[in-house]
């Protein structure tokens, strides 16, 4: 299987503070890659570097075959990104948000119209087409944001805490959408707080104080740490953390 993300010794320093400390890993095509860590462990900074939003201080990496330092504009065409903050426009209707991002990624009007129907159908959202996004419940907003992030069929989608604050039933549905996307060949790079969600990933990395301390499939990690759940694995690693939140 080919690798869509390759990272080696990636480091980001802000003054004296090393947010991300020489991390190395790679992600295979079609994989669901869980990127775990406590608050302040450096997850978001790492994602920003991979998406071309932030320049690495040291190290190298490539995403979708493009260098993250030099070819970050090329990367942007081939990825989808859902940020930690809710990232749709609240004062735009559902279909207007879809059309906006379809347009930004350069899709033709006909394609946008056709895919919009499919998307609304799949989400069971047909009646909400003209609803202002601000009127939607949080869980629905997140599902819509995810659908829009993969609307242009990117090679990789980066999801930064997509299920934060969402109720368990909705989270379950959200993960079904992630599986759907992975089945269609989209690589999913996801950060989360919820350890039961880590079990859904093909492979998981755990960041502590800017470093990746563990990286393997959930089952192998549980075995290696002699733990019953990913939560226990995480607790063991997080205890070593020096950084306060």
């Amino acid at each position, binding site marked *: 299987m080919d690798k869509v993300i390759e990272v080696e010794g990636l480091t980001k320093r802000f003054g004296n503070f090393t947010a991300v400390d020489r991390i190395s890993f790679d992600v295979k095509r079609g994989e669901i890659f869980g990127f775990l860590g406590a608050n302040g462990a450096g997850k978001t900074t790492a994602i920003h570097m991979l998406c071309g*939003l*932030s*320049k690495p201080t040291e190290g190298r990496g490539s995403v979708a075959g493009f260098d993250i330092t030099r070819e970050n*504009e090329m990367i942007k065409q081939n990825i989808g990104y859902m940020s930690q903050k809710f990232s749709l426009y609240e004062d*735009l209707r559902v279909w*207007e948000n879809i059309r906006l991002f379809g*347009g930004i990624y350069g899709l033709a009007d006909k394609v946008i119209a056709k895919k919009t129907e499919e998307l609304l159908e799949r989400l069971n959202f047909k009646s909400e087409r003209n609803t202002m996004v601000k009127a939607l419940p949080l869980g629905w907003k997140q599902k819509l944001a995810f659908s829009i992030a993969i609307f242009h069929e990117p090679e990789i989608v980066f999801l930064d805490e997509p299920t934060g604050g969402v109720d368990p039933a909705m989270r379950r549905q959200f993960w079904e959408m992630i599986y759907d996307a992975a089945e269609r060949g989209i690589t999913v790079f996801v950060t989360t707080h919820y350890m039961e969600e880590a079990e859904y990933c093909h492979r998981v990395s755990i960041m502590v104080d800017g470093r990746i301390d563990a990286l393997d499939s959930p089952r192998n990690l549980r075995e290696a740490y002699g733990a019953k759940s990913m939560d226990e694995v995480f607790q063991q690693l997080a205890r070593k953390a020096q950084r306060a939140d």
Partner: protein
Amino acid sequence: MKQFIAFVNKEFYHLVRDRRSMLIILGIPVVQILLFGFAINTEVKDIRVAMHAPHPDAFSEGVTERFRRNEFFNLREDLHTPREMEMALQKGRLDMAVLFHPSEESIQLIVNSADPNRGSIATTYATAIIAGYQLEESGVGMSQIPFAIEVESRMIYNPGMESAYMFVPGIMGLVLMLICTMMTSVSIVREKERGTMEVLLASPLKQGTMVIAKTIPYLLISIINLVSILLLSYFVLNVPIRGSLILLLGISVIYIFLSLAFGLLISTVVRSQINAVIISAIIVMLPGLMLSGMIFPIENMPSILQWVSDIVPARWYTQAIKKVMIQGLGGAMVWKETLILTGMALLLVVGSTLNLKPRLE
């Protein structure tokens, strides 16, 4: 192009769905132009004057009659003694006292000059009235004076000395820039505050596309403002539009675009929407009022302030609008101003595009 259109649409939705801001944006110019147009008035009218002649004679009667009939003066017949007049002057109920001294064959004018401009103009009027009467009464016709030099003055461009002629171009420069700059100054920082900027930066959208697209809806709404300002000044303040309307609109659109780009530049620098509004108000208001030539003539400023005024866009715009609107001059006379404004607009667009970093941090 597709990206551009999609982004312009989005900006339109933001603008028209924010009803309250829309009301403010369309209302402020109307209020301001009426407020400035009626409140700022440098014409000297209704000068309250009282006369005192200890020994009334034909001369004092004649002069008094002249003041009574003059439209600029309002003769106060209830004040008689110098003492009463002094009190009235102190209390601000009188602007001028005229005291006849028949023994010394002189007339004394006591003028309230707390407002020096008003005081000196009132003195000039009064002197002219008295001199005119004297000349007439002396019984000598013009023909009998060996050297008669007749001074005939004609006020061109603004024969009625209407102060609105002077202020409307200045207010246009100030109000248009203020509104436009404020509108766009919040627009990029708002996306940063809400977190949508992160997603836009992670998309293939180019910074230049974003900057230009953000000006389009505001450009259109500002043209509505421009039209309402021109209608008000034409029909309500009676300011003529003597030159070409097309030229006037053309220069104004360049100026509007410049102001919008300036707002975007501010928006790329500040960290919050509140800061954006405060900073744009201060940066636009102060130089716009002081250094645009609207209130204080630029030629009278110390040379360092004249240099500073050179970089104030409102100065060039006001100057051009005065030429076109009031003096009725054509394009050949305003090419310099137009060129400067265009140059500044391009500089600001490039500046805000470069300042809108393609990365976070």
